[in-house]
């Protein structure tokens, strides 16, 4: 296992491996997302309380799941870079931040659109939306630090430490926001606890979540490849890739 881990560690072998992997992943993502969307939009039952607006769940829930797992992935890549100094881990960490931030933003927008028919307002300081907002700030913190240390050799290690500090604080923040919510939240429908769903409701959701994961990895690999070309532009093999 260790040999494979190191082989993947070199940007060049990652680039070659991803050459084969990317088409399959991209196709799976496209397929799953289309199937899931059509299923959720057209065939899934409306909610007895919210009616059809529950269909927004099929994009809001996967987006916020990906937003959080994105941050965990970023922190893991950061830890790997700090411990084993594998250059690819730094590149991987750098490429997750903008992607994760855009998915967090997506979760916020779809959450507030979903809130409009349910609560009558665009923004409700609901526990899930608030912690998603904080997650967005954590992402922006990593992006801001990375750009503030642009020409610094050890910018990667600094952002890795920040990501790790963030991931340690994430559960604490989430817990305190949920607890704060119970103090101030009038007991109306909240996005936190998902309603008990019949099978024909959560099946499309499952398809969408898997689709979002495939999408996430596809874009992540694309961004990593683009960063590899940038950072390794001096090497022979990248010029070979450019030439072909």
């Amino acid at each position, binding site marked *: 296992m260790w040999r494979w881990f190191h082989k993947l560690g070199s940007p060049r072998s990652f680039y070659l491996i991803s050459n084969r992997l990317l088409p399959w992943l991209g196709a799976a993502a496209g397929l799953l*997302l289309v199937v899931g*969307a059509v299923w959720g*939009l*057209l*065939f*899934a*039952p*409306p909610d007895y309380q*919210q*009616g*059809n*607006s529950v*269909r*927004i769940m099929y*994009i*809001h829930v996967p*987006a916020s799941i990906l937003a959080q797992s994105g941050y965990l992935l970023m922190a893991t890549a950061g830890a790997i870079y700090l411990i084993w100094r594998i250059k690819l881990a730094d590149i991987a960490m750098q490429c997750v931040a903008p*992607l994760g931030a*855009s*998915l967090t*933003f*997506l979760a916020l*927008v*779809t959450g507030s*659109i*979903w809130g*409009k*028919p349910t609560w009558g307002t665009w923004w409700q300081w609901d526990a899930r939306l608030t912690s998603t907002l904080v997650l967005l700030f954590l992402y922006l913190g990593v992006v801001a630090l990375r750009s503030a240390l642009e020409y610094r050799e050890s910018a990667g290690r600094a952002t890795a430490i920040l990501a790790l500090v963030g991931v340690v604080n994430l559960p604490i923040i989430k817990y305190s926001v949920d607890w704060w919510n119970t103090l101030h939240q009038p007991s109306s429908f909240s996005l936190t606890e998902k309603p008990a769903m019949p099978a024909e409701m959560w099946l499309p959701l499952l398809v969408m979540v898997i689709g979002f994961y495939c*999408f996430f990895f*596809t*874009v992540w690999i*694309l*961004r990593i*490849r*683009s960063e590899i*070309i*940038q950072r390794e*532009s001096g090497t022979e093999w*990248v*010029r070979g*890739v*450019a*030439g072909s």
Partner: protein
Amino acid sequence: MRFESFADLLSMSGHGAFVWSAYGITLLVLVVNVVWPLLTIRQRLAGLRRADAPGVVEDP
């Protein structure tokens, strides 16, 4: 199929505007996320190709 007609699909008993706008924004964000790295890859590769092309004076 939960909706009888196309019009019914659009209106979704009043919630259509919200559902479709949410899906629209999602589609936009997803497409931008895919297209952006593809563009930068092509741009960077082209940059390298230009730099390598014989007879091209490499700008300092």
